[in-house]
Structure formats: C-alpha cells, structure tokens
C-alpha cells in the first residue's frame, strides 16, 4: 500500500487526537505497517482548535509532518476553513456532515464523503463517541485499515466498560462509509 498522509482536525473535546491515535495504532500495531502521529492543541481543554497529522506507510517513515494530506478528516467548520486548502488535489475529504457545509474551496478532483457522526453517536447513546464513528467512517471509505485492526485498536484504546459502545460507534461509521462507497455517492 502506498504512503498515506492524513490530517485530522476539529475542536478540543471532540476526540481528535484519540481518533488519530487509533488510526495510527491500528495500522502500526495490528496491520503491521508503520505509522507516525504529530498532535497539536489549543491552550484550552475544550473548544479550541485541535489537529493531528498521521502518516501510514509500509516502510519506515523518515519525516512525520504532513503538509499536504492525501486524506483530510475534519469534525468542525473551523478545521474545514483551516485545512481544506492543504488537501491534495484528488485527495479524500471525510467530514462531519451536520456541522460542516462544503463550498467552492474544495481542491480539484477531491472526493468528499460526509457522515452525520454527531447524530449517529447521539443515537447510540453518547455524543462522546462521535470521534469513533469518524474512525469507522475513515476505515470504511479509505480502506487504509483492516476492520479487524481498527476494532482491536479501539478496544485497546478506550476505558474499560466503554468498549461495547465504542465498538458499536466504530461499526456504525464503518458501515455508513461502506454503504456510501457502494452507492457511489460523492
């Protein structure tokens, strides 16, 4: 599989870093690839801009910073504004469709896939797991992680007692992404 550079963006409290961490963990620990993670936070615990850069490759990664991602996964309008211009032409945009409205700033050839992750998480009982819905959506649309690997990574990354709900959130996002792909939506 070729090298993939990913940017995850959103607000503090949405679980941006955890979602990026799980993506990297699934690839590196359970899919046997290489992964790096760079994270940046705003000064507040919640509500400030927050992003992470993840690189996945079959080979050792020499430079972990991501300037122009192949995949942009965003969970807030501010993150869309901040990062959409950096997405590679022909790249993949994954976005929270209830929070973010797309406009003409999309780079050429970008494939955009939206998921109402917050709503799906609320339907499951907890808005808190919206980031895990996004991780599932990421796996379902991009195919960069095997479902088994990402499931194991979620299980190992969330607090004890919350595994069931997190796994349901993962599968919700995964299935949503797979259905969107098979329906040919864009």
């Amino acid at each position, binding site marked *: 599989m070729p090298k993939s550079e990913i940017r995850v963006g959103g607000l503090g409290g949405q679980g941006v870093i955890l979602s990026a961490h799980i993506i990297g963990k699934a690839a590196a620990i359970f899919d046997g690839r290489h992964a790096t993670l760079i994270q940046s936070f705003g000064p507040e615990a919640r509500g400030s801009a927050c992003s992470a850069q993840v690189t996945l490759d079959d080979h050792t990664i020499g430079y972990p910073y991501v300037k122009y991602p192949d995949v942009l996964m965003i969970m807030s309008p501010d993150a869309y504004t901040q990062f959409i211009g950096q997405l590679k032409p022909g790249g993949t945009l994954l976005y929270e469709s209830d929070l973010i409205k797309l406009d003409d700033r999309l780079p050429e050839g970008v494939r955009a896939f939206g998921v109402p992750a917050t709503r799906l998480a609320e339907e499951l*009982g907890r808005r*808190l797991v919206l980031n895990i819905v996004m991780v599932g959506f990421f796996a379902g649309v991009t195919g960069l992680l095997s479902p088994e690997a990402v499931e194991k990574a979620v299980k190992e990354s969330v607090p004890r007692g919350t595994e*069931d*709900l997190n796994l349901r959130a993962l599968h919700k996002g995964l299935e949503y992404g797979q259905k969107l792909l098979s329906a040919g939506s864009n």
Partner: protein
Amino acid sequence: MKIDVFPQKVTLRDDSHVEIRPLDADHAPALLDFYRGLPEGDRLYLREDVTKPEWLERFVALVQRGEVVSLTAVAGDAIVGEATLHRSLHGWTMHVAEVRVNVAPEYRRKALGHALCREIVRLAISSGVEKLVAHIMENQIAARRMFDHLGFLQEAVLRDHVKDIRGKKRDLLVMSSDVSHIWHAMEALVADYSPTFGD
C-alpha cells in the same frame, strides 16, 4: 443497544445450563407462561398484571421501541428468568435506567438472577447509561444481596410505600449504582488536551 453477544450459555451453581438471550417477538408467548407460573406473592412485587395478553402486547411494543431491554434466561423452550432495563428515551432522566429481575422459583439460589442482572448492567453501561436504580421491598433479602454484590447502594427508603400479599405495609428501598465514572474516563480521553510543563 448491543445484543449481538447473545445467546450466552450460562452454567448455574448446580451445574445446570440456561441460555441468556434477548426477548424476540416469536418467544414472547413463553414470557407470558413464565410470569403466569410465578407465585402470586411474587407477582405482587410487579407493577402490572403480567398474566394478561394485553400486557404482553404492550411490553413487546416497548421492547421494539427500545424503551425496554429484555434479557431472558431460557431452559429448553421455557423462559425461567428475565431481567429488564427500563429507560426514558427523552427528558431529564435519560441518563438513568431501572433494572428489574425475576426468576422462576425452581431456578432460585442458583445465581441465575445474578447472571441476568450482570448482563443487563453491562448492556446499560454500553448504551451510555450513567446511573442504575432498582426498587426492592425491604423483605426481599436475596434481591438486596444480589444488588449489593453488583455494586448498588441503598439510596432511599420510602416508608410503608408498598403492601405485601397479606396487606402489610412495607418499606420500599431504592438502590442505585452510579456508573458515570466509566464515562468520565472516556471524557478525559477525548478532551484533546495535553498539559505542558516548563517553558
């Protein structure tokens, strides 16, 4: 609510086996048989007349709407126990769910109630419930012990709140278990905040 881990085979204290599984509409008539088989005194603890087909119809509708989760213990074709989780799907107590458990007399003292209750508590936590409550009459010693073991604490006593089969007024105990700490750990994990030290 995640119920795809079922059916689960459970070995009881006397080495007999039952299967725990969610109630489905096909099996609903067996639930009516189960409740009709409970001693009259036990049925007094229940809030509705569970021997009537109209009750079953209403109950199955609640299960289908997701307002009630029903786990049954099945031996052969018969239901020998049931645990239910009652939760409001909107409003100010959405985070709270009530647990109710009933076991057939011949399956008591075998830890079946405990097994059912443990599974329903697990389902409750996984669906985001933060607080569980159970209502027990003061003289339901075994039920109280079971909830004690599962981490429930007595939260309130409603004096002379219920009448037993002889018409004697009894205290009703409200037991509860706060499971919100599990979700606090998750909240901390998604806070996206990494403190820095020094310059």
